[in-house]
């Protein structure tokens, strides 16, 4: 299902992009839906899309051995995930599973990278948002770690 700039404007993640840039993103994006227990991707999968969760709840985790899934935490609405799709070797660091029916914006990573190279302003904004996502993920992980240590 296709998305409009109006749809994207409703999501905080897409703040600060110009209307033209949002139009470009909407052309390379689609809306995908998942059912409970659907696996969006596995750890070590090659990724071709960057995702932003629109509705629902997803769980992110790692696998120590086959079938032994460790849930690390939820991805909440408005969060970006599958950022590894933007950086070589485009391999996922974790698996993501739907815990409730979910609606996700899927952005074609190859087209996104082309636009990043073409439009500096777009590239800077996008990379900043990805950097911030990873920074927050790291900070939240440290928060989680400190909580565990205090127990």
């Amino acid at each position: 299902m296709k998305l409009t700039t109006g749809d994207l404007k409703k999501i905080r993640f897409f703040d600060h992009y110009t209307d033209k840039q949002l139009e470009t993103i909407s052309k390379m994006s689609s809306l995908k839906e998942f059912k409970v227990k659907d696996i969006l991707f596995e750890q070590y999968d090659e990724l071709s899309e960057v995702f932003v969760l629109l509705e629902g709840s997803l769980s992110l985790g790692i696998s120590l051995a086959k079938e032994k899934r460790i849930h690390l935490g939820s991805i909440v609405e408005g969060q970006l995930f599958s950022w590894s799709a933007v950086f070589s070797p485009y391999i996922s660091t974790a698996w993501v599973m739907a815990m409730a029916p979910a609606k996700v914006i899927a952005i074609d990573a190859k087209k996104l990278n082309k636009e990043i190279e073409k439009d500096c302003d777009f590239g800077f904004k996008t990379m900043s948002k990805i950097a911030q996502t990873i920074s927050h993920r790291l900070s939240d992980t440290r928060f989680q770690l400190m909580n565990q240590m205090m127990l």
Partner: protein
Amino acid sequence: MTDVKNIYKPIKARLTEVIDESPLIKTFVLIPEEEFSFGTGQFIELSVDGIGEAPFTPSSSPHVTDKIEVTVMRTGYVTEIMHNLKPGAYMGIRGPYGRGYPVEAFFGKEVVILGGGCGLAPIRSLLYALEHIKDKLEKVILCYGSKTPADCVYKPLFKRLNSTEKFEAYRTVDKPDEGWDGSVGVVTTLLNKIRFNLENSIAVVCGPPIMMKFGTIRLIEMGYKEDQIFLSMEKNMSCGLGKCGHCMMGEFFVCKDGPVFTYRELKNTPDIWK
């Protein structure tokens, strides 16, 4: 000398109800024997006769004046004995003390509340106070995290808030149990969900020190200014009056200059999250 109130003498309050919120947490419903009122965010020194005293922020609405509710977690000697009290017992109340939430400063604003663990007790009082003036507010968003689903006190609160105009409430837990179908992770992740107008927003943070530290850092990263963030600080207290020195945090007496501070006031004070 007798015309001046003795600042160390409590007023008596009768315990009328004990509500079991969780294995470690109970809410005491008290009827003070003298007229008593408090501002939301202020605290009282609650005592058990002859045993000891501890500071608590009432969790009831400041607009209900015939009774007050205090939510107590069993953590040490005094709270253990408090948990054994039955309705009909008398407790002592000194207060209200301190600087509470400056609710008038929230008029016209979007109030984002970041809470964790036992911090929900003072937050509930604030939510009641904000509900009372909701016509004067833009919106109120609660983001709350607890260790497990069972650790969240006042579970019905979330449903009620989500069906109240201008209020939104979100929950997450660190460790889910079998029946949990909500978010898992630290409370800062919930901030990704919310839509707010930064220029017109203020943030209130209340919970364990680690949560307050990471929460404040995240809010600053999101663009909140230091005087837009209100923190509810906790310290070992004895007198509650800015005299005994136990609650000193840098040059501040948390009991008198706080417990509510803006981040701007505290940012140069070292070790506030210790």
